[in-house]
């Protein structure tokens, strides 16, 4: 996955023009459902709704979603496996399905593992509704309403802008190093020692340039009239009552629907 593919999707998303608040409500609401309801069937409902919202309504390319989900899925599998396999001497081998040495797999550990994977998958999918449709800058501008101090939001906004400037620097400088065999120097263990030095030189030079750039950007902004605040236009987006209503119904409905199937509303 390219490091900017989620961001690219967010900027090009057809939902970009929706009010940020609506998207936050849907995404966070579904995360709450995924967290609070029993794994069966709550997380299934959330996953399906999130998939429908992302791929169906927000028309995000399936590829972008697949790329976004790859890393969390690896984490969930690793986590799931470590939960599934229990360690220690079992008191009663009859209660486990399989055991070998100090390892065993039983109904409790299996349920835990399934919970972990199901909650994780549903939660991440729900979060992706926001991540794939809302550029960071929109979210941060919206957060002014939450009375987060402006200075903090300005720092976050500058961070966001600078991430892309620095990423460009890192990729280009790394490529330049590779051209001169920086990643494959001669020597023992594929030039392990020099590779370390080269990586440190890369990080160091990017760091030094980042620092110089922050000074230049500060000068540039002072020149534009920056004294103590970086005020910009508020985001103006017209909301939709239908969207708000559907969000409410979907969240309440999926939560309530757990009752007849699982017999409870809490996990």
């Amino acid at each position: 996955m390219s490091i900017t593919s989620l961001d690219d999707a967010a900027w090009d998303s057809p939902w970009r023009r929706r009010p940020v608040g609506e998207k936050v409500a849907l995404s966070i609401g579904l995360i709450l459902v995924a967290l609070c309801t029993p794994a069966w069937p709550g997380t299934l409902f959330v996953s399906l709704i999130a998939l429908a919202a992302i791929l169906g309504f927000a028309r995000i390319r399936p590829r972008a979603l697949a790329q976004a989900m790859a890393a969390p899925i690896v984490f969930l599998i690793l986590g799931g496996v470590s939960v599934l396999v229990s360690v220690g001497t079992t008191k009663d081998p009859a209660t486990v399905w399989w055991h070998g040495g100090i390892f065993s797999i039983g109904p409790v550990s299996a349920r835990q593992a399934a919970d972990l994977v199901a909650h994780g998958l549903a939660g991440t999918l729900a979060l992706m509704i926001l991540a794939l449709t809302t550029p960071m800058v929109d979210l941060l501008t919206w957060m002014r309403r939450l009375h987060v101090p402006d200075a903090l939001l300005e720092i976050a906004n500058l961070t966001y802008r600078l991430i892309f400037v620095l990423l460009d620097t890192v990729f280009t400088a790394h490529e330049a190093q590779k051209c001169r065999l920086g990643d494959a120097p001669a020597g023992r263990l594929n030039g392990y020692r020099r590779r370390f030095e080269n990586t440190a030189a890369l990080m160091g030079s990017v760091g030094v340039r980042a620092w110089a750039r922050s000074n230049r950007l500060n000068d540039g902004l002072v020149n534009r009239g920056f004294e103590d605040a970086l005020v910009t236009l508020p985001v103006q987006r017209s909301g939709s009552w239908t969207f708000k209503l559907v969000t409410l119904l979907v969240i309440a409905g999926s939560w309530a629907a757990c009752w007849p199937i699982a017999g409870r509303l809490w996990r």
Partner: protein
Amino acid sequence: MHIAEGILSPTECAVWYAAAAPFVIHGAREVVKQVKDHPENKLLLATAGAFTFVLSAIKLPSVSGSSSHPTGTGVGAVLFKPPVMAFLGMIVLIFQALLLAHGGISTLGANTFSMAIAGPWVGYAFYKLTKKAGGPDALAIFLCMVFADFSTYCVTSFQLAIAFPDPTSGIMGAAGKFLSIFAVTQIPLALAEGVLGILLFRFLAKV
């Protein structure tokens, strides 16, 4: 290594948010104070945040071929002090969650606690202790980076263990499992970052 969205229970999410909150608020206050007197610090702090984020795009050299990326909280702790790192670290974690699907929002409290609070404080403590004991700078930096990484990884493992205690050996058994399964990537990472820290500071001293 961040805990993915959704896998901690609501109670745990709330507890870790509550645990992280005082540190983050303290850090945020510190930041607001710093930029009030010196608006140019906004750019500097943003650059530090962006740099920490971008570091995770640099692949560390490794013998095994597994890919690992530096966390950089140790450097940040030395340069900006742990309180500021608590705030910057949380910003970076939000960005990682939304731009890389790495971590999450409900687990933000837990991840902030491990990466932006425990890591920098422990690393910084090792840095200060080594300096106080008259140890060389290189050793102080090395220990700071190694233990910033290492403590983050230990705290995360315990957070997962509390959430998913082992049916037979309990929380400690589960912690052992998580510690060992992630050790493959995390211990070499911590050591690599320590070495890198020395080389980095040596590089910066020359420039």
